[in-house]
């Protein structure tokens, strides 16, 4: 079943076409990789899918419904969540607060409930807190719940960002270079984490440079170059694709392998 689908997705900044008529499909329950050289438009696609940019042309369908042009918070409510290439946690807030903010769009109280601490407020808060504690526990961050996000080591910040994204109960999770800055062991742990996320029923689309991660967990991979999709397929197919080697992997990488 198609969960996310882009049709002829295009965006131009000034004269530059950053993403050029890209068709992409992510099925429910899959882990899909999006690779390509820096500046090839991967993150830009993420930004369009999450509503930060509005596409110049083309469509984005989520669960069959168009979402292009919608505001980011609306898209999050629909069930898409993401992490960022350069970690964007709420740095001076606690780990717990970060996750609770992730719960924001699933909480039902309004401003006046908040102001007057109504029953609904108390109920929703304790509900959200329970969700947050459960998530932090599963991902091993519970002990650090009162720590300020800024004080976490790099790897845990990455992890917290994923937990925060999961707190919004997404159907689709977009991960932007989650392994960046991780050593091989950490990357291994990350791969396990991503599988764990998928097993919770969350579909994953990830941008990643670490080929080991990409090749290791992605069921399908799409390759971008200069804003265009130049290939799509399984890890093996991509690794042997001539155009991909030329544009991204490099000939040596292949011969070296």
């Amino acid at each position, binding site marked *: 079943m198609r969960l996310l689908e882009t049709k002829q997705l295009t965006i131009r900044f000034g004269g530059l076409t950053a993403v050029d008529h890209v068709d992409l499909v992510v099925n429910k329950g899959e882990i899909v990789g999006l690779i390509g*050289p*820096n*500046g090839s438009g991967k993150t830009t696609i993420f930004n369009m899918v999450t509503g930060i940019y509005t596409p110049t042309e083309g469509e984005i369908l989520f669960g069959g419904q168009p979402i292009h042009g919608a505001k980011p918070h609306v898209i999050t409510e629909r069930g898409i969540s993401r992490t960022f290439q350069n970690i964007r946690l709420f740095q001076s807030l606690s780990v717990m607060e970060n996750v609770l903010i992730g719960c924001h769009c699933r909480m039902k109280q309004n401003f006046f409930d908040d102001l007057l601490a109504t029953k609904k407020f108390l109920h929703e808060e304790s509900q959200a807190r329970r969700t947050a504690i459960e998530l932090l526990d599963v991902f091993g961050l519970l002990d650090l719940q009162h720590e300020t996000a*800024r*004080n976490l*080591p*790099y790897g845990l910040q990455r992890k917290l960002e994923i937990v925060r994204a999961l707190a919004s109960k997404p159907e689709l999770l977009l991960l932007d*270079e989650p*392994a*960046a*800055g*991780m*050593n*091989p062991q950490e990357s291994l742990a990350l791969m396990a984490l991503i599988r764990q996320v998928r097993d919770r029923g969350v579909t994953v689309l990830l941008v990643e*440079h*670490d*080929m*080991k991660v990409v*090749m290791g967990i992605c069921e399908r991979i799409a390759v971008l*170059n*200069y804003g265009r999709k130049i290939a799509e397929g399984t890890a093996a197919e991509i690794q042997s694709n001539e155009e991909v080697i*030329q*544009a*991204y*992997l*490099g000939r*040596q*990488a292949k011969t*070296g*392998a």
Partner: protein
Amino acid sequence: MLNIENLQVHYGRIEALKGVSFSLAEGEIVTLIGANGAGKSTTLKTISGLLRASAGKITFMGRDITTLRPSAIVNMGIAHVPEGRRVFPKMTVEENLEMGAFVRKDQKGIKEDMDRVFQTFPILKERRTQIAGTLSGGEQQMLAIGRGLMTRPRLLLLDEPSLGLAPILVEQIFQIIDDIHKQGTPILLVEQNAYLALQVANRGYVLETGSVVLEGDAKDLLNNEHVKKAYLGE
């Protein structure tokens, strides 16, 4: 000529470098490889004085430069071509190159060097009056390197020169790096594309989360199991 001992750097409370040591001899290309956030760029920025070391020592040509200001370090002959090119977007190509020669007073030498840069990068000569912000990524990278060369450096620090460039251009840039080296300028190269970097370099150091975990001849590193696994995607 460049010697780094137990270099430590903090961003606020976060320790970015946890005691890095390495050296570079006259005439060498040395590369630092490692993942994002491993501390490669931090190392370069600390050498060129943009960041302050919290501990450790950097010596260049026998002189301690750990606490010198960036301008003094440029004066000593270290040129740093930063990550992301960082050309001056509202200045012309020529003005950018002039800025590269900011610390120099020998008008004649500057003129010669500019001609040399134009020889190395003919495309820049064509675009000499164009505003740098309107150049393509590859042209900007060439301009950034050219600008670095305008200081007539005794040591060139290159930070991710292949970043975001098309493979064809990457090859071209590496060709140029090799040329510059052959003309006698030692280079400290930071590269994500470990394969290419180790191809062109004499020696290499592998950085992981702020520490050197491996070092050796580039050829040896290319065949190292760990390097193959972690950085060559094999």
